[in-house]
């Protein structure tokens, strides 16, 4: 199946269970939003899928287009087509953005092939222009001393340069000012298409006004408790999570 499929995923960390029988399917071509209170396990889900080794997977499966990725090394998962825009991007001193993305691209090439530097920079500059990033940024060390918003923009730049089949965006909107939110959303919308699936993790409905999702999921205590159309985000914004908790308590 052409989808990112998570089935009955149970994950714990240091003996504490975080994801509880979590299931979600994102077909290619769709954008799914994931919302839910702090500490519910959204970032855990993102990192487990990306192959972070700190988490214990107790049971369940995660597949990309039918291929298992659970238990694989992070680089293998990346090559399989999963990209994670981090909630807290890491700083890599001394490594320029241009060199980093170039290395990440080179790692995807078959042995012996090299990157055409002229074409590479042309594409990089185009994408930076689209995200309204100053071209001077290419020479700066990756995320080193970047403002919160600059880091998030840089995540989306990497995402668009690496052309993944599935994009997981963990709170990309937090830290972005109103104008930046618009620009970054436009960048993401340009990437939308039948060949790509998105999981957009956010707390705020405002992002979903720009990146309009096909489905909105509400997560609570390690699993999805409610799913609905884009309008669900408005409802959440208006009512908060309490009503979810209440309805969840009755279904539990």
């Amino acid at each position: 199946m052409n989808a990112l499929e998570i089935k009955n995923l149970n994950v714990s960390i240091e003996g504490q269970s975080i994801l509880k029988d979590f299931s979600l399917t994102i077909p290619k071509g769709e954008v799914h939003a994931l919302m839910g209170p702090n500490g519910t396990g959204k970032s855990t889900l993102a990192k487990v899928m990306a192959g972070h080794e700190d988490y214990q997977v107790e049971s369940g499966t995660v597949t990309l287009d039918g291929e298992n990725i659970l238990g694989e090394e992070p680089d293998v998962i990346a090559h399989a087509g999963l990209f994670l825009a981090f909630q807290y991007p890491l700083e890599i001193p001394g490594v320029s953005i241009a060199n980093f993305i170039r290395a990440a691209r080179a790692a995807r090439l078959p042995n012996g092939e090299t990157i055409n530097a002229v074409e590479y920079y042309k594409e990089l500059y185009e994408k930076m222009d689209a995200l309204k990033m100053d071209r001077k940024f290419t020479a700066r060390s990756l995320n080193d001393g970047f403002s919160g918003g600059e880091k998030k923009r840089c995540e989306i730049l990497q995402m668009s340069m690496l052309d993944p089949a599935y994009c997981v965006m963990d709170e990309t909107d937090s830290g972005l000012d109103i104008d930046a939110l618009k620009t970054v959303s436009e960048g993401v919308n340009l990437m939308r298409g039948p060949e790509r699936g998105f999981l957009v993790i956010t707390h705020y409905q405002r992002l979903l006004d720009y990146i309009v999702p096909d489905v909105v999921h509400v997560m609570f205590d390690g699993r999805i408790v409610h799913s609905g159309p884009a309008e669900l985000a408005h409802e959440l914004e208006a009512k908060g999570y309490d009503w979810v908790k209440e309805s969840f308590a009755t279904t539990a």
Partner: protein
Amino acid sequence: MSNTEVQDDAINVDTEKGNFSYPEDYAYDAGVGLSEDTIRYISDVKKEDQWVREFRQRALEIFHKKDMPTNWATKDLENIHFDKIRYYLSKGQQPSRTWDEVPDDVKETFERLGIPEQERKFLAGVEAQFDSEAAYSHMKEELEKEGVIFVGSSEGLEKYPEIFRPYFGKVIPSTDNKFAALNSATFSGGSFIYVPKGVKLKQPLQAYFRINAENFGQFERTLIIADEDSEITYMEGCTAPKFETATLHSAVVELVALKNAKIQYITVQNWSSNVFNLVTKRGMADEGAEVKWIDCNIGSRLTMKYPGVVLKGRGARGEVLSIALANDGQHQDTGAKMIHLADDTTSNIISKSISIGEGRSTYRGQVHMPKHLKNCKNNTECDALLINTHSRTDTYPAITTRGQNNTVQHEASVSKVSAEQIFYMMQRGLSEGEAMSLAVNGFVHELLKAFPMEYSVELKRLIDMEMEGSVG
């Protein structure tokens, strides 16, 4: 040579460039162990003058008298067994002037290491040492015409005593330390260079030191004299195969920069992981002169090396830029010494060390600036990078005396490559080795910009190889 072919297949030349050896076949062999007879044998083979013989004998006495510096340095030094080492091995002590004349196995060794190719591309001259003696030595003709001398230590002392003898053993006396004494007693090979007044070499001269035999000790001796207003860049590289037993490399390098001269000395140390690399390096800078050490230690089991500059003349400048990479089972104990002896002298030390796995790096710095001097400056930056929790770094910074008219700046930092950083980079598709390599290259990036291009490219390649190999 069928033996060689088998080895070619068995060894991945790209990732373990130096790890191969050829069957031993030596015309001269001083045997195992160190005694007055060993020293005499070396002198006889080299047909040395009486004063050189006496110099060696005195040094041997000093060597025996001095204790191992284990009171401040690592106890691993006790694992050097001086009585099991072979002190002199050579196929003949005259170097060939063309590669064609070099014995096949030796020539193949250096071809596999890429030396003739580098010579054609960007070097003004090359000396290639195989165990105790240079197998090849050649310098561009125009430099010879300008009066540049580029010979081995024996030839230098024999043919040009009036030039070399006044400085030989003066910048680093035999009494300096136990290993300088050992080298002074047993030295063989190395480069003696004289650059005449006003001559500025546009391309570097290079020496390549190769250990081929097991249980062998290599004790080359280098002396570079840059006469007034002259300039020279010298590069040295080294490798050895991975033997079962430990090998000793103990060199002495003396640099003399006369008035307004400039010497830049570059080292890429890539010994295999069982070599004890105990080297004494010091330069003397006269008025307005500059001595710059670029020192990179990637290989060896234990390296102890603290390149220094004696700033003897007014306005002299000294610099040490160093990178040390300590992987599992390695200890890089490196640093710098700056001895200010005149007004208006400046020194700069930038040291970057990387410890990986169980690797250990130590920085020892010494800046000496007597109170009576005026307008002297030192800047020391000393940064350590740790990759994973077992690695270790120690810093023993500058012991400084300074007066009110002088400035000393010292900055030190320790940073870590976190598992989260590696995860982040791997999420972008880089392998663990590539991720670590990028982090390390990022850490040395600023410093590499100060290095000559060919050299930084080579260094980057070595770091990549080392990091790829360190992923368990």
